[in-house]
């Protein structure tokens, strides 16, 4: 495919003799695979990719296509290097031995559900404590309720400023960033989707929990907050960290 011969025998050519487009493809594939495969396994996968590409190129060459046309056909048929690398990474990740339950829901989903479930539970516990055991001294603010009212008129509540309030607020705001990032570091492919699939049932659970807290509305506000803030932020952070992990791994030579 690589070489100058009209019908290519990839088995006999080294990676350096590949057609430039194929070489670039194989290098990219190799680099992306290095995020999840040791050198020996990667060598098999890259070899197989070249083997398949070679056969696809030959399919076209025997029909009279030019080498350029045949290579383009082979690359288009085999799929993008990122897609193939992700298919291997995801396949290996999801096929690790695990319990039937984890196999059923998917390993990536299980990891995301674990992290986000703990985050949701922690925030719910803080909300419960805030509502049913509102202990702790309120923090002193540098202005009086009357001064606040002059800026924020009557229907708006004077904010409660206890340490517990700030802890709950911090959890609700910071957790999706932290948890999304941690999920992305463990799930090599489609981490954002795993967050989406796991957080959706958790939001439903938060909504039901919020209904249980009525007439206090903080639980329902948390469910809405998860929907409009946790979901996009955690999914984005998971996607970014997963991408960074895949791209940060240097490609060892073999």
């Amino acid at each position, binding site marked *: 495919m690589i070489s100058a011969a009209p019908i290519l025998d990839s*088995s006999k050519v080294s990676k350096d003799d590949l057609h430039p487009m194929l070489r670039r493809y194989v290098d990219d594939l190799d680099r992306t695979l290095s995020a999840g495969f040791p050198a020996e396994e990667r060598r098999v996968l890259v070899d*197989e990719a070249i083997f398949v590409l*070679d056969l696809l190129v030959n399919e076209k060459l025997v029909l009279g296509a030019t080498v350029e046309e045949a290579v383009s056909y082979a690359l288009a048929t085999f799929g993008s290097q990122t897609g*193939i690398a992700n*298919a291997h990474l995801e*396949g290996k990740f*999801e096929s690790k031995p695990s319990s039937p339950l984890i196999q059923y829901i998917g390993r990536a989903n299980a990891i995301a559900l674990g992290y986000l479930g703990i985050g949701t539970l922690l925030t719910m516990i803080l909300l419960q404590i805030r509502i049913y055991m509102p202990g702790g001294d309120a923090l002193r603010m540098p202005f009086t309720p009357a001064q606040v009212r002059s800026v924020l008129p009557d229907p708006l509540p004077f904010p409660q400023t206890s340490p517990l309030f700030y802890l709950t607020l911090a959890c609700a705001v910071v957790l999706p960033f932290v948890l999304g990032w941690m999920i992305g570091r463990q799930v090599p492919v489609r981490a954002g989707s795993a967050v989406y699939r796991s957080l959706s049932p958790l939001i439903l659970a938060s909504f039901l929990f919020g209904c249980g807290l009525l007439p206090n509305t903080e639980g329902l506000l948390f469910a809405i907050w998860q929907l409009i803030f946790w979901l996009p932020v955690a999914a984005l952070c998971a996607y970014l960290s997963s991408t960074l992990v895949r791209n940060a791994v240097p490609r060892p030579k073999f």
Partner: protein
Amino acid sequence: MKDSTKPVKDEGFGFAGAQTVILAILLEKERHAYDIAREIRRLSEDRLPVHFGTLYPTLYRMERDGLIASTVEQPVGERQRRTYCLTDKGHAEAVRSRMAWNNFATAMNKIVNRGEEPI
């Protein structure tokens, strides 16, 4: 109006469909990934699209579930490639899924085509 003689390209046939097809193809003999993809295209007369990006995760999953086993082969002077074959469990599943598919296809054919020749 659509040309009814033109092969209908599906968007894909999902994991369950892909698994059934792969089991049926491996029932004959062991094959590597390219061989499996080529057989799917050939036997379906290019009606079933084959994406290697879907094929590989399906093969990993089937191997995890014990339906197939893989070995890395390197014929002399050739590149390494992974070859897949059915396990005993995979063999039984191939037979079962074939019967299930035939039942389903027969039922659907009776309903959709009402005894007429399929288009």
